[in-house]
């Protein structure tokens, strides 16, 4: 479970990114996080990932309070979180297999097990025939699939997606959304997006942010800004 309790985040020089935000996401839930640029979506994701710590309030991830600046077990926590970025963050000098294996190698997993897991992830995202391809040989949609596959491997049951379809055309966006639909039962997914069509079509819980404040939290909402 992820829980935000009156969380505020003020960046240095007084820029307030979040203002007393409270919500909870249950295990296995799919939540859209919507809002205009600067609304605080990325800050929420960064707080869950432990990249930031709150100025006030508390953040609980997997029932562990990670609010303290000197929280020591970030590595352990992050091993349960998969992150997908708008700009993919696929390493150009590694092929598809190596990119996906990155998250498994850090667990010092035996290579045979890495191979099995990577191939399962490739099958999930439909890239099983592009294992040895390098990023330069892939389209934007394929790159995002690599990033999704990487985020899904290992024991990562929380998926944080920061505008993952932001750089994709509508058809590719729906291909990507199909992958999310396939895994949503087994993962907790927090999906930050601007994409009105995706949010309105999927009818999932929607948390709407504006100017650092949570203004709406609808169980089966739509994009309403």
């Amino acid at each position: 479970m992820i829980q935000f309790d009156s969380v505020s985040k003020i960046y240095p020089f007084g820029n307030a990114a979040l203002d007393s935000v409270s919500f909870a996401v249950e295990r296995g839930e799919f939540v859209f996080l919507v809002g205009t640029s600067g609304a605080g979506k990325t800050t929420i994701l960064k707080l869950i990932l432990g990249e930031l710590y709150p100025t006030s309030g508390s953040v609980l991830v997997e029932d562990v309070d990670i609010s303290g600046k000197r929280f020591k077990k970030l590595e352990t926590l992050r091993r349960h979180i998969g992150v997908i970025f708008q700009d993919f963050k696929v390493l150009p000098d590694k092929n598809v297999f190596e990119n996906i294996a990155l998250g498994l190698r850090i667990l010092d997993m035996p290579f045979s097990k890495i191979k099995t897991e990577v191939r399962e992830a490739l099958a999930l995202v439909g890239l099983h025939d592009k294992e040895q391809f390098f990023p330069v040989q892939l389209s934007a949609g394929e790159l995002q699939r690599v990033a999704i596959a990487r985020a899904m491997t290992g024991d990562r049951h929380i998926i944080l997606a920061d505008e993952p379809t932001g750089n994709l055309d509508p058809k590719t966006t729906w291909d990507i959304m199909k992958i999310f639909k396939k895994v949503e039962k087994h993962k907790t997914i927090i999906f930050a997006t601007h994409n009105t069509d995706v949010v309105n079509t999927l009818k999932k819980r929607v948390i709407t942010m504006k100017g650092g404040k949570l203004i709406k939290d609808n169980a089966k909402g739509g994009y309403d800004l």
Partner: protein
Amino acid sequence: MNELITSLRRTPYQSLAMFFSLFLTLFLSLLLMFSLTFLYGLLSYVEARPQVTIYFQNETSESSILEVKKELEQSGKVTSVKYVSKNEAYALYRDLNKDNPLLLEMVSAEILPASLEIFASRPSYLPELAAYLEKVPGKDEVNYQKNVVEKLLALTAVVRTGSLAFFGFLMFTTTIILITITHFKVALRKDEIELQRLMGAKASYVRRPFMREALFLGFLSSTIVFAKFSLLIYVAYPYIQSYLRGVQSLSIDLAQYKLVVWPFSIEYVGMLYLILTLFGICIAAFATLFATKKYIAIQRS
């Protein structure tokens, strides 16, 4: 091994720069280490020689010489006095010049003087003993080695201090260079490191390839330096041998252990290699540890 090769191929110029910095430092360090151990060996050798030697005229009788020996032993100012007769001196001369028949032909036992080799119990007694020996009837010459020992001691002290200062400077410079090179290498892999950290990689995991490469380069450079240095010594061996002609062996005292430095012993060569390799590995590892610490730490804001 594959990961190591990939890592080296990924940043070949940085790896080469790291190798050459280590090579230069280790070569100079080995040169210093070698010179110092040899100098200390030479100092021990000279200190172990008789500190005062008195040579007697040919007509001086053995009984008179033994009388002087007895007086010296009773003075309480000497640890030992060794009588070297004409025949013993001749035997020593033959042994030292066994490869030069011309020199052997020119000298007989008769023309070599008998002598007393005196070891003072304290260096401060040396002038007194020398003064006493100068007045002994039948003396031909008194050889007083205090100056030689003092000069060698002074030289050793200067070389040691100079070496330490130079070594410190070398260490500092090399560490800075290695840190800078490693910074470059880390910066080139910044995206990958950032991603690894976001995915939960421990600092030790992220640091591992850099450390592995540093340890490998430390080992490789020290081994190549040692091989090159051995080759140089092999070429210079005849010259060293001729310079140290007559010196049976040079050794230095290491706590309870006497390490023979000349002729080169397996222990001495092994110790030089071991120290050099350890030094190479340690300096490379330290610089890498220091350089990676800054970039790899998770910084929450």
